[in-house]
């Protein structure tokens, strides 16, 4: 009389691989583009949080539970489902879908390890392990490289059934996925300061703006709006802007730290990111606009990886050539919305060697650097500007933190220390005894940055 009526009439208990794909890709986007990016941005001199919780965050007043929701989204949300999806794709021998899932996984876990250091990975999302161990950060980065290598093999496979309709990034274009995999390889080699390997990987990376790994957004429905737009315009207006921040003053031609010079005019890019001296541009044409695609890995990042890595490995001349390639790309208007690309508002003329010699326009001041360090300083600063709004900006600041001569001198928002990581979430501390103990504080660098 009471049997057999507890089968859920409201929800299924299984779904096939292609049905899961869109959701895990969107899940990854929500991590890269959402709250984590905003917090990273406040700590990178990009944004100012000035209301309620964001005022506390801005002043580095964060507590472990502030990370609970994101951590849950990352692991029990995205990563677990990527893992299930990979298994299902393997079961039906859809190698290309497996490859796509692997790239998304690498992107997700690369960001997670960059922010938290040692993280659960090899034992994560496994029903047998209710208390998954934390893997060392170096081991995580190493695994991500093999994962991406495997992804590239799978993406090259001919064994697949089309999932173009579910592939929100590239609609089944494998060439673009493969280039993305290589740029991500380069990014994560860079993060562990393996500049040679980064240089090699970036050679096969994203080679045109059309191939950028972007998060698509549309004006059709709130659930497809850019997350920055949702936050800035809809959910938390007046919580976060750019007033007085280092980043805006760097690109604002009238800013007190303007990086403009006779060869460089940042007005168009400034307008794209910030449409006033204080505000983030979330108008329809701005970087934070309603349907503006959000960058996950791009041609410009790839060019700047090449520039930095080449400069570090092969020296000044190689680096300068790479930087000028990047500047040539910028001089076409690059990713800046065409609305702002009025002639005279953007200029990125090539630098010459003399610009980096002591006393050159990129090596002024009382304590000039060597030309290669000055070049690197310029490349690092260029990367800083390129990453406005992205977690990579925070990752870069911490990576170069111990090179005070070339790092971007973002001032502290509060106190005497610069945040070096995200905190392990309360929910993991409470339940998982494998969580590192004592838990590192906000100002402890992650292992690769020690």
């Amino acid at each position, binding site marked *: 009389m009471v049997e057999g009526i507890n089968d859920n009439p409201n929800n299924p208990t*299984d779904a096939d691989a292609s049905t899961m794909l869109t959701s895990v890709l969107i899940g990854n986007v929500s991590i890269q583009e959402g709250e984590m990016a905003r917090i990273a941005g406040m700590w990178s001199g990009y944004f100012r949080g000035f209301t309620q919780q964001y005022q506390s965050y801005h002043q580095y007043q964060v507590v472990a539970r502030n990370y609970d929701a994101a951590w849950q989204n990352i692991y029990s949300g995205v990563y677990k489902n990527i893992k299930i999806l990979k298994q299902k794709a393997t079961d039906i021998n859809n190698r290309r879908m497996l490859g796509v899932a692997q790239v998304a996984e690498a992107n997700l876990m690369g960001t997670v390890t960059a922010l938290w250091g040692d993280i659960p990975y090899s034992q994560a999302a496994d029903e047998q392990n209710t208390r998954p161990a934390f893997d060392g950060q170096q081991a995580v980065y190493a695994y991500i490289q093999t994962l991406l290598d495997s992804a590239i093999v799978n993406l090259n496979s001919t064994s697949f059934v089309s999932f173009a309709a579910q592939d929100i990034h590239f609609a089944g274009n494998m060439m673009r996925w493969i280039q993305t995999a290589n740029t991500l390889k380069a990014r994560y080699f860079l993060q562990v300061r393996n500049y040679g390997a980064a240089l090699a990987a970036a050679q096969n990376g994203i080679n045109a703006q059309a191939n950028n790994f972007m998060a698509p957004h549309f004006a059709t429905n709130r659930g497809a709006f850019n997350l920055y737009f949702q936050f800035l315009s809809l959910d938390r207006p007046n919580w976060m802007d750019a007033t007085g921040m280092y980043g805006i003053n760097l690109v604002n031609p009238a800013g007190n730290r303007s990086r403009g010079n006779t060869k460089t005019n940042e007005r168009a890019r400034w307008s794209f990111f910030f449409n006033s001296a204080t505000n983030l541009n979330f108008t329809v044409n701005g970087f934070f606009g309603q349907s503006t695609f959000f960058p996950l890995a791009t041609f410009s990042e790839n060019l700047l990886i090449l520039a930095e890595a080449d400069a570090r490995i092969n020296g000044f001349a190689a680096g300068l050539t790479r930087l000028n390639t990047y500047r040539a790309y910028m001089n076409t208007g690059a990713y800046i919305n065409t609305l702002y690309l009025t002639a005279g508002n953007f200029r990125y003329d090539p630098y010459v060697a003399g610009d980096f010699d002591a006393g050159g326009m990129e090596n002024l001041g009382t304590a000039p650097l060597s030309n290669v360090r000055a070049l690197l300083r310029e490349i690092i600063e260029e990367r800083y500007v390129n990453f406005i709004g992205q977690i990579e900006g925070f990752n870069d600041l911490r990576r170069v933190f111990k090179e005070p001569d070339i790092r971007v001198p973002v001032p502290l928002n509060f106190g005497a220390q610069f945040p070096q990581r995200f905190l392990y979430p309360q929910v993991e501390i409470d339940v998982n005894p494998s969580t590192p103990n004592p838990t590192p504080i906000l100002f402890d660098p992650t292992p690769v940055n020690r």
Partner: protein
Amino acid sequence: MKTAYHVKGFFMMSILVLGILIQSHAQSKTLKGLVVDEKNNPVQGATVTLKGTRTSSQTDVTGSFSIQVPNEKAVIVVSFVGYESLEIAAGNSGTININLKPSSSSLDNVVVNALGFESRKDKIGYATTRISAEAIANTGEAGLMQGMAGKSSGLRVSRSSGDPGGSSQILIRGQSSITRSTDPLIVLDGVPISGDARNESAGGQIVQQSRLNDINPDDIANVQILKGASAAALWGTKAANGVIVITTKKGNSGSKANISFKSTVSFDEVSAFYDLQSTYGQGNNGVWALNAIRTWGDKIASRSGADDVLNTTGGFFVGNTGQPIYPITTKNSRQTYNDKNYNDIFRMGSFLDNSLSISGGDSKSNYFMSLSDLNQKGVVRNSSDYRRTSFRLNVGRELNKWLSVSNKAAYILTNSNRLQAGVNNAGLLIGLLRTPPDFDNGDYTGRSFASPGGAFVNDRQRSYRNAIGGNANPGFNNPLWVINSLQNTSTVNRFINSTELNIKPTSWFTLTGRAGIDYFTDRQTNFFPFFSANAINGQYSREEYTESQFNIDVIGRAQHDFNSKLSGNIAIGYNYNSLNSSTLGGTALDFILPAGPQDFNNVTPANFAVNDRFLNTKTNAGYTSMGLAWNDQLFLNVTGRLEAASTFGQQANQSFFYPSADIAWQFTRLKVLEKLSWLSFGKIRASFGIVGVQPLAYRTATIYNTRTWSDGFGGALDPAQYGTGSFVQDNDKGNPFLQPERKQEFEVGADLRFLDNRLTFGFTVYQNETRDALISVTQSPASGFNTLYSNAGSIENKGLEFDLGYNVLRKKDLTLDVNLNWTRNRNLVTNLNGAGSINLGGTAGVSSRAVEGYPLGILFSNTFQRDAAGKMVLDANGFPTVDPTAGPIGDPNPNWRAGFGINLKYKQFYVNALLEHSQGGKVIDGTEGVLLDYGTSAATGFERISDEPLRRFNGQTIAAGTPFRGNIHNFGGGNVALDQSWYTGPGGWFGNVGEQFMHDATWTRFREINIGYNINSSFLKRKLGVSTIGFELSGRNLFVISGVNGFDPDANNSGSSSGRGVVYFVNPPTRSYLFTVRLNF
């Protein structure tokens, strides 16, 4: 054990059958008699029953009766409401005279047991409280729920806010479930009904109605509170939180039509509100700023007092009062608007409650019919209305000697407007209390012009963050917008029916069949027009909810007197219960036509989300109850229930057994004690029982869902907007091992009466433990799930209950009774199986949780860091530092509660009063915490001067003698300045340190007072046909004494759920003044 019952049962049945065969041979004769009261007036309508049979008769208007008796040894029982029942042997004479004595109110009360049958309180072995019809109907509360507050030991009724019809938390003997509902089972006329508040959220966005408040209090004959497990074992997995058995009225057999009419008018006002400062204006860092979020601006008194300087060359606003509003460039006016802004929102609330009933019957049938209408206008203008109209018809008929039927049916229509509140940018008080004192909230809607003479936008919202409506997003809603433009309605159509059939083939056996249905539909709509906070382009949602609960009981009962000393009874029954609900609704976001109809078609298909859900649970069970009585002094009762339910996991046992036993001994029947003149009656009792709680339905397997990816404080990405739609695995892990929670309770107690029954005293000590408590065990997210719903917890309650009654005066015209009840409950979550802590409600900053080793609902937040000696760890500026790890900070549960009542009657004049006290416990005032951050709290309105330099939180120094806004405080490292940088940092709500806003929740409340006079006049009777006219003045919640300011310490952000003790922009409490007229025809 079960087998033993069966053997015993069969044995007893055999004896009973034998006994009745012997009896039926006897010869019969007619006994006549006269029944009079203490003044020798004839008593009409008294029941005369032949003891041990269903043969009965009633006295007529002269007090006379006649009844067939088998022989002179037969015993007749004469009973009449309000009088002590009397047993008399028939004897030899043909007529007897019987004098009835009025019963003292607390004497041998009739109680209703778990099966809905009447029993004698003096013969049962467990604690129970009965609340009479008068005590329910005279409370002055619009709803039944609050009417029970303070009237019974062991019962805690906490109103979460002042919203009309709003829910309250009802707890019987503490919380014995961690995550499942703590609401007691509501049994109305033998049938379980819905008594909860649906769609309540932990953040308290809308205080929902309680379905218990659908019941018209005037229809109720009595309410029986069954507190312990043994009293409730016959309800199995529904009864873990105790049972409230409500019996509705029926007509008196053999009486003429009794028509009564009652009309009550009530005036309600806000009884507590926050203190706001009006010294400083909108802005930051001491500078006035247009549209600033906070009120840390300039000193208003320092302004010139001239007119504000306006910019009339750009955008402006024309408000609903027609006046143009220009942006202020220099604020000169010293005018403040706190009172105006308040009065624009709040009013004197009122309700009018009319109820009419007609009842009566003849010797074989009875009827009760009632109509009632409650029309309430809450204290918030326009948007807190509540109207309940109900109709009831109860009828009964004895078809013949062995068959009687009765039916009780009610229809209820409830309409209400609800208010947005709580953790919610659309909420009423968020907008009102954060408004700067120098901002006038009037002109909340109007036309927004971009330039003089330019194009304009209609119906734009204006708020203090959007002073000329230039922005589509108002930030927070203007409170006038909340009450005038938002709509949150609920319409409930409810039908409750219970039918009972009694077959009594012989005098010792009764077969009762009882079927009941509780069916209701609840249509809830929420409408946010264009330019509302949270829904700038409009949002409309509608939900059609249908719930139907069907319940059948078939019960056979037999009784037998084995000999003059030993008697017994047995009941065997079967129960089937089916609960079905369906929800169909949708949410339409971003209207196509801004001023379009409230209709799902006013959005594009992509912006419409459907909510389509079903729930079906079934339970069936067999049960038995056996009782033995020895020498009218020792009573033993044993029950057992074997139950299976659909919600149990596939891998778990499919049925569970719930036993109970209770024993009562009237020790004053001992010869040695019978002579004690001061001790009138004494009983000691003990009971034991096990009850359960079913798991939630559909939790035995892990589901896949169409997840949207939410983004911290931001919005969300919805995969349904991309590709071809998507399903992924949920983050809650299904559990095939689910089984019911099992609560085991043990209690002992005594009921004593002294001084010729004038002083009554009862006490109970109880201990209960719930094992296998269902909790969502927090999982390491890295393991792939956030939660696992499982039988992993345990929780215990220990407590003491006292009930004391004293009949101080018992004169001819004057009676005075006082009564006191006192309850102490200690709750402890004893095991969570390493689940960490379970969030039960509250807010992000301070939550109410279950934490192992602490009472349920413990308040949980970050604290200031302290060293081993307990001293605060201070930073270089002398300010405390925040401990990044949160922990338990305070217990919201009271140490004890007490109710004290007085009933005075002088001739036709009466006074009833009830005081209630709650001692201890903690409450978090989140509202005040936020107002400190926003600079609107009165505590931020001071200008201070220090004779020493003071550090600010941001490290700056205020020179000695320089006036600054804020307060001076010493955290242990010398005086520091608490100013904007502190209050908008760790010193305010958003700094995460909840301990600063924690208060002692002790309160004393003057719950109710009634003063009335009844006129009985033969003149009126002759002229108007009115036999009685009653007038009554009442006050409800006239005062609350507590250590908190601005809110009721009993208020709760999480409504009626288990989460307690956090107040965050909860709608304010009320006090009421009522006037009632009663007419009896």
